[in-house]
Every structure is written in structure tokens, then in C-alpha cells.
């Protein structure tokens, strides 16, 4: 932060302050505007100091799992780091799944946990866990602060590591005695991390090789992933696609980076991706993967993925390249930088034959679902899309409805599909939508849930009420665990059906009442549109809608686990 007149810290440089105040002033230096957390004995002092010293907003969740997912939602919607404060012991260990989730999806989080005093560490002290040890494999990096002298430089490093290169969660463990010590406050201008130098600039020799392959291709396909969002390279992606007339498939994490109403769009690729996206990649002679890990859910059988194609792979994380799929031209660097260098070197291609082939496929194998006078999920998603014009932030939980949303919502704008892609964390949607609603004010925020996933974090309804967040909460209730049921049917021959019935599913309308949230229940197709309209019109308060959906519905297309395009199952 500039040491200017408007800087709220300007009178405090060089002053001796309590560790706790140094902590809060460091957050001010990092321009933090909201902190998600849960109170607990060991962190009460931090919240107290936050309230007293800073204008930073505090969102208190009902569970640390909720708090970290809210921070994740905030970070995914804005690109800014989400900040979490949690207590020691169980407060810290409750964060674990949310941290792993952010790590898989490259979400920048800075998590502060309280720790027992340094002298008591390792003594099985009350509310002590080795959170640095627990989170080592699921964070980008983590720190235990052992000296007050290192507090500011550690916080600076944590924010730097979380937000640069391939972003990810960074945890800082703060022993209570360190925060009670006094030290001179000064915030470092630079980080001192000699082992950390992410490569932003793409190698021009590799770019030339990529351009040569693209210029000689007849059937190019672009696979755009979440890295395009992180790099804010939407314009460059569009420019490249239009210049070389290449169809664009997006991964689940990449949805929104390329408008799905564009004629070059292939929609989503992968296990539940469109028939034509998967087949285009299968027939392609040049696959350009941009900011994607090429996860197994995207590629299917690694050995059968894009067998005819030369593969160009652009990613800022060298270890994501040639991990699953061997790249012919690996390009390490920032997606935006790489595309900017690549665009002038590629020729204008017209690929007429290829595009007409794809058009034919789109007509022959469209996405479809059975129509019914009861409620089906894709029908609701299509209605929601029509009513919002795709100008809404959709926060999906994990399940069949997540895939239906990915297929039928036809995303147009970046950062409008917030979802747990890599870890597949059930219970993600409600808390994540809280983080989104804190910061997104110009679009409706819609949380899409299943009956089981919703129950994982339903305590966060209290947070929704407490801050009166106008989230529209949709619950699709088929009385089962839907996507697991589909796997059961298609792969495990319906053997253990009783495990998958949500027999003690609560009455969601009564739950909404209990939290003081207005609610609707929809059981027939003709009630869908009017109810959604009513809910969307209630702009300044939360609404919960329960859709009783038909149970025996499966989601297609479907490439069974470990299969390839030849195994694709359609309606």
C-alpha cells in the first residue's frame, strides 16, 4: 500500500504495536475488505481488533466448513483472495475439506488459524491440532509463525503466493502468544521468496511451434479451462477462436469463458459433456488445451483421447502439462500472455468443411431430456436461463443437477458458474453463494442444490438470514442421492438401492420457515415459470424453492468412468 495520506496505516509505521494489531493492519495493507470466519476462544481477540481498528467486514458463518466455502465463493466470483479466520483445534480442522476444494480448483485463499501458545505446541494442549501438518498436502504453501518479527513478512508472502502463478490456498498458523507480543509495525514492500518464481512469459520458440501446427491444421479444437478465467483472457480466447475458426469446448471450470450461444461454441466437454464436443476432439487434428489440467473427467481414457491430434497445452503450472496427456507442444506461462503472442502468428483459417461437419453433429446429437408434466431438472434450468438471460451467478452443488446446469444453462459470462469442479464437494453451494452474494450486487445469485448436498451445510441458512443476503436457493428433491443412484443403475446393477434413498429427508419448507426465509414448493411443470418469476422479483431477500422432481431420470450423454468417445451413452 502506498504510504499516502489516505492510507489508514500512515500514522502507525515504526510504532510499537501488539501482534494482534499488526495482524489487522497487515490485512488493511493487503486491501482485504471482508473476512469470513467463526468465533472461538483463540480468535476472539482477532475479531475484536478487526472490529475496533479496521473497516473490514466480518461474515460469521455457523461452521468453519461454511466459512471457508464462503471465502472460496467470494474468491471465485471476484478473482481476489478470500480471507478466512478460524480458531485453533477443531476450528482449524473443520476447514480441511474446503481448503482441499480450493486447492483443486486453483482458488486463492489466505487462511489464518489460531494456534496454542508456542511453548505448548506438541503437548496435546486443549484445542490443539497440527494444522500445518494436516494441510501440507492440500495447500499451495503453509506457514507457522514462530516469531513476532516474521509476522508481517509471512502475511505478505501468504497473499503473494495465494494470488500469483497458479493460485491456491495458503494457510498461516498464528500461535496465541505471538499475537500478544509487541513489535515495531512496518509492512514490507517486497516479498523475499527466492524459491518461488512462477513463469508468466510464454517461450516464444514454443509459441512459434504451436502456430505452425495450428496453421497446418484442418480440424482444430480449443479446450478452454478455468485458467482462462484466472488469467482474464476472455478477449484473447475469442480473438484466437475467430481468427482460426476453431470450435471451442469448455471444461466445467471453464464455463463462461466463451459464450455458449456463439456458433463456434461446443458447450462442455467430458464425461457429461455434449456428444459433439467429445466427438470433435476425437476427430480433431490439432487440440489446443488452454488453462486446463486435462483431468480424467475431461479426457476419459488417456490413451484414447484425441488420437489423431497434435496437442498444444498452455498452462502456468508446468506439472499440469503432460501429466495425463503427453503434449506435443508444451507452453508454460500465463494464458493471456501466451495467447497475445500466439494470435499474430496464426493465419486466418476458414475450416469450412470442419465447421459444417460440426454443425451437422449438433443437429444430429443435440442435448435433450424427457418432457413431463411433473418437474424435471433440465426444464427448470432452461426456464431459469430464459428468465435471467444468463445474466445471473449460478452456484451449483455437486450432483446430476450440476451437470444439467452445465449442459442447459448456456453460460455467456465469465465467473457466472461457480462450482466445485475438482474435489466435487457436496455442501458447497449454499455457503459459496453467501460469499458470492457479499460481493455480487448487480446480478441475481442463485444457489442450486440437491436434497442431500443441501443438508450438509444447511446451518448456513442462519448466515443468509443474519446478513439478509438475497440468494435464491433452489433445491431439487427426488428423495434420493441422484448422481450416485445413476452410477448404481448403470454400473452396479441397482444392488444397494436402499442406501441411496433419502428416507429421513426433512421438510425443506418448514426448515426455511424456521430460519425466517420465504419459501415455495413446486410439484408440477406449469408452476415452474411463475414461481421462478416470483422468486426473482423478490430482489432484496432470500427465497427458498423446493422442486419435487421425478426420480427415475438419468443424465446423458454419459461416458462411463475410464471410457472414451466410443463408449458414449445417449438418450
Amino acid at each position: 500500500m502506498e504510504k499516502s495520506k489516505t492510507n489508514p496505516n500512515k500514522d502507525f509505521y515504526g510504532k510499537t504495536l501488539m501482534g494482534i494489531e499488526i495482524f489487522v493492519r497487515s490485512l488493511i495493507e493487503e486491501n482485504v475488505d471482508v473476512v469470513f470466519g467463526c468465533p472461538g476462544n483463540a480468535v476472539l481477540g482477532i475479531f475484536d481488533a478487526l472490529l475496533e481498528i479496521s473497516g473490514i467486514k466480518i461474515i460469521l458463518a455457523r461452521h468453519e466448513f461454511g466459512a471457508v466455502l464462503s471465502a472460496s465463493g467470494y474468491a471465485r466470483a471476484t478473482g481476489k483472495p478470500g480471507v478466512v479466520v478460524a480458531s485453533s483445534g477443531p476450528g482449524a480442522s473443520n476447514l480441511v475439506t474446503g481448503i482441499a476444494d480450493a486447492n483443486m480448483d486453483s482458488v486463492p485463499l489466505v487462511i489464518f488459524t489460531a494456534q496454542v501458545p508456542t511453548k505448548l505446541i506438541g503437548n496435546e494442549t486443549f484445542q490443539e491440532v497440527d494444522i500445518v501438518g494436516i494441510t501440507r498436502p492440500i495447500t499451495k504453501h503453509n506457514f507457522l509463525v514462530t516469531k513476532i518479527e516474521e509476522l508481517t513478512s509471512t502475511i505478505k508472502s501468504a497473499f503473494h503466493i495465494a494470488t500469483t502463478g497458479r493460485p491456491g490456498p495458503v494457510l498461516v498458523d498464528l500461535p496465541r502468544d505471538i499475537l500478544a507480543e509487541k513489535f515495531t509495525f512496518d509492512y514490507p514492500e517486497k516479498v523475499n521468496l527466492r524459491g518461488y518464481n512462477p513463469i508468466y512469459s510464454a517461450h516464444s520458440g514454443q509459441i512459434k511451434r504451436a502456430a505452425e501446427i495450428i496453421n497446418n491444421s484442418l480440424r482444430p479444437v480449443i479446450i478452454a479451462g478455468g485458467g482462462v478465467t484466472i488469467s482474464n483472457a476472455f478477449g484473447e480466447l475469442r480473438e484466437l477462436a475467430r481468427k482460426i475458426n476453431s470450435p471451442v469446448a469448455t471444461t466445467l471450470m471453464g464455463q463462461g469463458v466463451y459464450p455458449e450461444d456463439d456458433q463456434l461454441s461446443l458447450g462442455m466437454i467430458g464425461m457429461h459433456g455434449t456428444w459433439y464436443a467429445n466427438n470433435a476432439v476425437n476427430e480433431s487434428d490439432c487440440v489446443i488445451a488452454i488453462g486446463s489440467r486435462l483431468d480424467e473427467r475431461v479426457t476419459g481414457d488417456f490413451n484414447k483421447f484425441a488420437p489423431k491430434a497434435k496437442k498444444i497445452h498452455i498452462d502456468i503450472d508446468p506439472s499440469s502439462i503432460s501429466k495425463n496427456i503427453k503434449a506435443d507442444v508444451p507452453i508454460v506461462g500465463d494464458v493471456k500472455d501466451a495467447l497475445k503472442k500466439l494470435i499474430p502468428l496464426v493465419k486466418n483459417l476458414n475450416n469450412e468443411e470442419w465447421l459444417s461437419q460440426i454443425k451437422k453433429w449438433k443437429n444430429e446429437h443435440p442435448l435433450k431430456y424427457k418432457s413431463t408434466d411433473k418437474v424435471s431438472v433440465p426444464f427448470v434450468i432452461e426456464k431459469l436461463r430464459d428468465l435471467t438471460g444468463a445474466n445471473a451467478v449460478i452456484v451449483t452443488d455437486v450432483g446430476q443437477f450440476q451437470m444439467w446446469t452445465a449442459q442447459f444453462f448456456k453460460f455467456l459470462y465469465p465467473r457466472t458458474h461457480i462450482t466445485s469442479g475438482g474435489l466435487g464437494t457436496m455442501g458447497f453451494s449454499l455457503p459459496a453463494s453467501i460469499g458470492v452474494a457479499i460481493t455480487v450486487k448487480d446480478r441475481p445469485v442463485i444457489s442450486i442444490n440437491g436434497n442431500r448436498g443441501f443438508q450438509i451445510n444447511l446451518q448456513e441458512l442462519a448466515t443468509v438470514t443474519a446478513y439478509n443476503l438475497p440468494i435464491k436457493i433452489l433445491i431439487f428433491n427426488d428423495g434420493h442421492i441422484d448422481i450416485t443412484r445413476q452410477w448404481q443403475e448403470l454400473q452396479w446393477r441397482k444392488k444397494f438401492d436402499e442406501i441411496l434413498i433419502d428416507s429421513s429427508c426433512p421438510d425443506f419448507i418448514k426448515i426455511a420457515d424456521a430460519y425466517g426465509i420465504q419459501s415455495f414448493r413446486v410439484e408440477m411443470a406449469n408452476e415452474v415459470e411463475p414461481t421462478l418469476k416470483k422468486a426473482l422479483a423478490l430482489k432484496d431477500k432470500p427465497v427458498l424453492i423446493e422442486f419435487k422432481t421425478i426420480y427415475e431420470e438419468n443424465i446423458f450423454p454419459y461416458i462411463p468412468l475410464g471410457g472414451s468417445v466410443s463408449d458414449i451413452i445417449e438418450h
Partner: protein
Amino acid sequence: MRHTISILVENKFGVLTRIAGLFSAKGYNIESISVGPTEDPSISRMTIVTNGDDDQIEQIIKHLNKLIDILKVVDLTNEPFVERELALIKVKVNPYTRGDVIEISDIFRAKVVDIGPTTLTVEVTGKSDKITAMINMLAPYGIVELARTGVVALKREFKGEVYTSKEIKLIKKKSRQKQVEDDEKG
């Protein structure tokens, strides 16, 4: 294939766990690991010997490079390097076999560092296979205890007097050619 990887790391607590954790999380086996400070006290050098095919080693090196506390990773396998390991071997002896054990030690240029009525401890340094060979030679006498340090290694400074086997072949070929040419002229 056996790879010797030399890593420079920040001399901080927890770094060894991060590296060991990375290997175990990916299911890669560490054959030996040795750690010690370098000429710069803030930096430690780790030498890891591991096994894997080219793709696995590429992934290991990429993941090591991702760790924040790692400063430099070099796979020494593909370049000339000096490799040494030290072992202390405590062998069971009696008045009749003591001489034999000392004779074997001499052949391996090992030193006797401790002697007792029924045992003899020798210290040996060299490449891992030399140490293994010596252990195999001593095994029939009965090895009571054994401690190996694991490999330490440094890149050779290549100044022309040290050649790889490929280069030696090339030099021999050239000199043969020259001889043939000289013969023709003569």
C-alpha cells in the same frame, strides 16, 4: 531407471517433510536421501536417489520445483557427476577370521574404526555399488549392524580432462581415423 537428484532448499523446519510428503503422496519410492548444510548456511543440499521411468521423473522434478522452499532441482543422472556414500559396518569376528576381514577391508580401501573381542567396525566410502559389493563380501562372516549415509553427489566440473564414455568413444574413433589418413599419406 535409477536417478540421482540434487536439490537446494531453504534451511528451514518442515522442508524435509514437504519433500518426503510429495514422494509418498505420489507413490514414488525414495531409495536414499541425505541432507546437510551447504557453503551458505541458509541453504541445505538434499541428494535423493529414486527410481522411475522418464515420465515419472519429469513429474517428480516438476512437483519438486513447485514447492516454495525449494531453490533448485538438478537431475544429475544425465551428466557427469561424482557420487559417494559412506557406510559403517560392524562385522562378527573371531581370532581366525579377523585377518580375513581386515584383508577384505584393505581391498576396498576401508578403514577399521573400532575393534572389540568379537566384532570389528569398518568405515568405507565410495559409489553405492562398491559399498554393496563390500557388504556382500562381509556378509558370510556375519554383519551385526550396518549404517549407510545414503548418496551425496555433485556435478563434475567439465574441463576436458574428464569425458563421458560416449565422448571417449568419439575421441578414439577420431584418432583411429587420423591414423588411417596418416597411413594413406605415408
